[in-house]
């Protein structure tokens, strides 16, 4: 990797790690995994289902909050505080800055997810002392959650490159919510006619398809995840993120840093 991108990546990671808010959010996520153990006791035989469902949902939700909370300020904060000026006055190209910020936050989220995943597996081992082969699907679900984080990080960075932190948060969170219903939106598009059909189809394919990346329920019920879906989702997340990042770079390259 370009050394400048690497240094920006490590600095972004260090900034996130030294942000105390991050630890509060991780603690909450771990608490929720622990709470899942208690909730699972409301009925016999559903402990595993509840732990996996609630645990993975906590990992997903808190990770999205971290991705948006940190992602929206990645560029705008550096402009407001003028820290960007001393970076770009050096032989650092603007696209390298965007790439470094993206990899830095993505790396942070991967590490966070790993810690939160330990919490989920700890809760799982508590309710079921012996792991089953179907529990490997939990790792796939976690991988898909990481892919969600990668997309949402790219989106937060995109909005941060031209918008205020508040608006960036609204846009990014809105896209996350709409994207979670992307399959329903595609279904609606198929039923619609004329102009509505084209508008709905365009919107359905433009918003990130978070519903395809959400296999929590499937995994909680012990159903396997096909390797085809893993390949498709990986390619989709990479292509979608790359396209969004290209947009961020295009905007940022032409932005006057007043």
């Amino acid at each position, binding site marked *: 990797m370009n*050394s*400048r991108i690497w*240094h*920006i990546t490590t*600095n972004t990671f*260090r*900034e996130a790690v*030294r*942000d105390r808010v991050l630890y509060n959010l991780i603690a909450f996520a771990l608490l929720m995994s622990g709470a899942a153990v208690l909730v699972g006791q409301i009925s016999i035989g559903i402990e595993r289902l509840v732990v996996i469902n609630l645990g993975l949902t906590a990992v997903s939700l808190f990770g999205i909050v971290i991705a948006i909370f940190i992602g929206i300020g990645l560029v705008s904060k550096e402009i407001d*505080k*003028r*820290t*960007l*000026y*001393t*970076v*770009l*006055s*050096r*032989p*650092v*190209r603007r696209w390298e800055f965007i790439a470094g910020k993206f990899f830095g936050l993505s790396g942070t989220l991967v590490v966070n997810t790993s810690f939160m995943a330990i919490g989920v597996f700890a809760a799982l081992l508590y309710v079921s002392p012996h792991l089953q082969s179907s529990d490997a699907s939990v790792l796939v679900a976690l991988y898909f959650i990481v892919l969600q984080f990668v997309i949402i990080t790219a989106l937060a960075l995109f909005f941060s490159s031209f918008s205020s932190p508040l608006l960036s948060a609204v846009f990014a969170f809105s896209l996350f919510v709409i994207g979670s219903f992307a399959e329903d939106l595609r279904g609606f598009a198929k039923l619609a006619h004329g102009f509505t059909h084209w508008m709905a189809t365009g919107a359905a394919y433009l918003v990130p398809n978070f519903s395809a990346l959400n296999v929590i329920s499937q995994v909680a019920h012990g159903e396997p995840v096909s390797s085809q879906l893993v390949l498709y989702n990986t390619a989709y997340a990479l292509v979608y993120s790359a396209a969004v990042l290209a947009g961020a770079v295009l905007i940022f390259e*032409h932005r*006057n*840093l*007043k």
Partner: protein
Amino acid sequence: MAAIEILGLEKTYSVGFWRKRPKCALQPLHLTVEDGEIFGFLGPNGAGKTTTLKMLMGLVFPTGGTARILGMELDDPKMKAQIGFLPEQPYFYDYLTARELLKYYGQLSGLEAKRLSARVDAVLTKVGLKDAADVQLRKFSKGMLQRAGIAQAILHDPKVVFLDEPMSGLDPMGRREVRSLIEEMKSEGKTVFFSTHILSDAEALCDRVAIIHLGELRGVGVVAALTSGVHNSVEVVWQGAAIPSGVKALGAECHLAGDTTRVVIPEEKQEDVLDALRRDGLRLISVTPVRTSLEDYFVAQLAPGKSDVTSGVSS
């Protein structure tokens, strides 16, 4: 080769929400800064100093014109490796220590790892931050932040250093420290281009200055040449509060300060005043020619329609 060549650089913004109106932040600017000089870019707030610096750093895109630094284009990474920049009222990554900050900037500037540590230590010592090297920047005072800012600007031993209001907000001790750092840069052969509205600093440091107001260059010249205009006046200071009748007759205003009195008179009246003092037995303390200060020149250039650029006042 000139260190900095600004060739008609200009910037106009579009302001307004529905109806965009053009707002000229900088009219076409032509300026050359020679190698090794300390060049002061003076002007009141909102004159266009920071806009000019930002265009040179590639942070803002000019509407017209070009510029070259060390003979290279503004977007050339090789050029950027040879310049340093301190923005106005800098704010750095407050979660980093001074040492971590400089190490980060050194890495971005392409300094080799084995040379970097030694260079960071040397620069921290130079700016007087060696003892605070491992303290997080959020605990730094304003003066310490400014010194950290200068440290990052000179870390990679650049040939040209750009400083935007480097003395802004500093106490007298802080200003003196920054002044001596700038003098040291010059002794190392660096070209220093700094913007300020504190004229005494410019007068003390700069070889040449340019004055800009409302986006327009109003004057350029060697400081000594700009301030050598003699008003043909002299200031006479004597002991005591008494004012001789010969001095009163001139109609000049006398100022009492402590146990001395001073008056500014036309040079041709000097002998008359000295005779008047002798007649009254008053003790003469000093007779000093009155010179134009940079402030006088600065204020004169800010007058509407005034510009010394076409009158050829330059070195």
